[in-house]
């Protein structure tokens, strides 16, 4: 049980409380992780609505699997992994739907939710950030996943490797490829004076 005198209980302790069916640990965990995981899911799927659905599904899985969570592991990596798996499943569904639409109509359908394709989701105007987001949506899925975990969520190469269950070298190489692709995609902005030049301290 979460002790009242503990102001910042660890994720593992909260999961243990959830496993016992307690509400308060769940409230704390949700408050702590929902914004982070939601942003990650929106980055991977490119849609706020899809991110909402996947986030709810992720927390349902967390609730159900909490009794099986091993306190030796890192709870954050575990939750990111659940979200990453949901994102991969979402991409598979989108691909299947796209293929089915193509088979039926013979036309390539791009309106089925590829990342960054929803006009409502895009930033207004043609800011540099909007172009970065669009370029991010054009990255291969596994590179986009690594890039978001690294840059947006601030994980280390090792943590990303743990989340995605792949070697650290693979993670590093995917990240380098992603950055180089983005860089090539956004080269036209190099000479523009209006691009913000703040340092990437978010990393």
């Amino acid at each position, binding site marked *: 049980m979460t002790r009242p005198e503990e102001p910042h209980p660890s994720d593992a302790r909260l999961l243990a409380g959830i496993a016992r069916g307690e509400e308060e640990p769940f409230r704390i965990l949700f408050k702590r992780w*929902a*914004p982070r995981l*939601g942003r990650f899911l929106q980055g991977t799927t490119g849609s706020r609505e899809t991110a909402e659905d996947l986030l*709810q599904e992720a927390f349902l899985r967390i609730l159900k699997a909490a009794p099986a969570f091993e306190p030796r592991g890192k709870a954050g990596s575990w939750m990111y992994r659940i979200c990453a798996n949901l994102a991969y499943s979402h991409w598979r569904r989108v691909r299947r739907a796209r293929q089915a639409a193509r088979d039926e109509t013979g036309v390539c359908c791009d309106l089925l939710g590829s990342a960054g394709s929803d006009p409502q989701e895009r930033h207004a105007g043609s800011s540099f950030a909007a172009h970065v987001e669009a370029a991010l949506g054009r990255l291969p899925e596994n590179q986009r996943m690594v890039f978001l975990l690294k840059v947006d969520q601030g994980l280390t190469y090792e943590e990303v490797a743990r989340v995605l269950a792949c070697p650290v070298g693979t993670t590093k190489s995917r990240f380098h490829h992603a950055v*180089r692709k983005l*860089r090539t995609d956004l080269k036209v902005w190099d000479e523009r004076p209006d691009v913000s030049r703040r340092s990437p*301290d978010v*990393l």
Partner: protein
Amino acid sequence: MSCEAWSGRIIDRLADELGEEDAIALEQHLADCPGCAAEETAVSRVLAAAGSPMEWVPGNRMEERLLDELGRLRPIQVAASGTFLGRRIPRPMKGSRSVPAFAAATLAFLALAGGFWAGSVERSFREMVDPTAGPHDAEISPKETVRPLDGDGDGGGGGDGDVALARVQGWITSVRGFSGTPADGVYICRAFFPDSL
């Protein structure tokens, strides 16, 4: 080192993954190479734009819906964790859990013992029926079982081949014990009722 190789280090440094020594070497290179310095500025701009913190607030009622689900799951969770509100729920006594395990172990032992017994009985029957099998089994090494069984390879006649086949079959049977196949049944019937086959 080429500028292409340095670009990997630029990315690692901006991702805060470059060791101290490599970072110093990179700084020296950037001071001497305007191309790489420009590359670093451009990459840092991309990373800063991609990593700009976006406020993300979960939708209305998501937390409440999940809490409802937690309430629905609670009995299952409690059963899985073995506790409720911090108190351990008593589990069934050890003895009652060990009964099925003991029964399974007893059954396994009986099956094993029965198999050995049946195997030895069957071998005895076979010795009565076929004197080439049984007592000679131990004299045949596994290596010999790969010999050609038709007798062509060792220059012997067809009779030798039949004897070798019987010996090999006897050896295989002795290794496997009583297999319980229809062939075993035929052996036993031949022993008891030779006229019936």
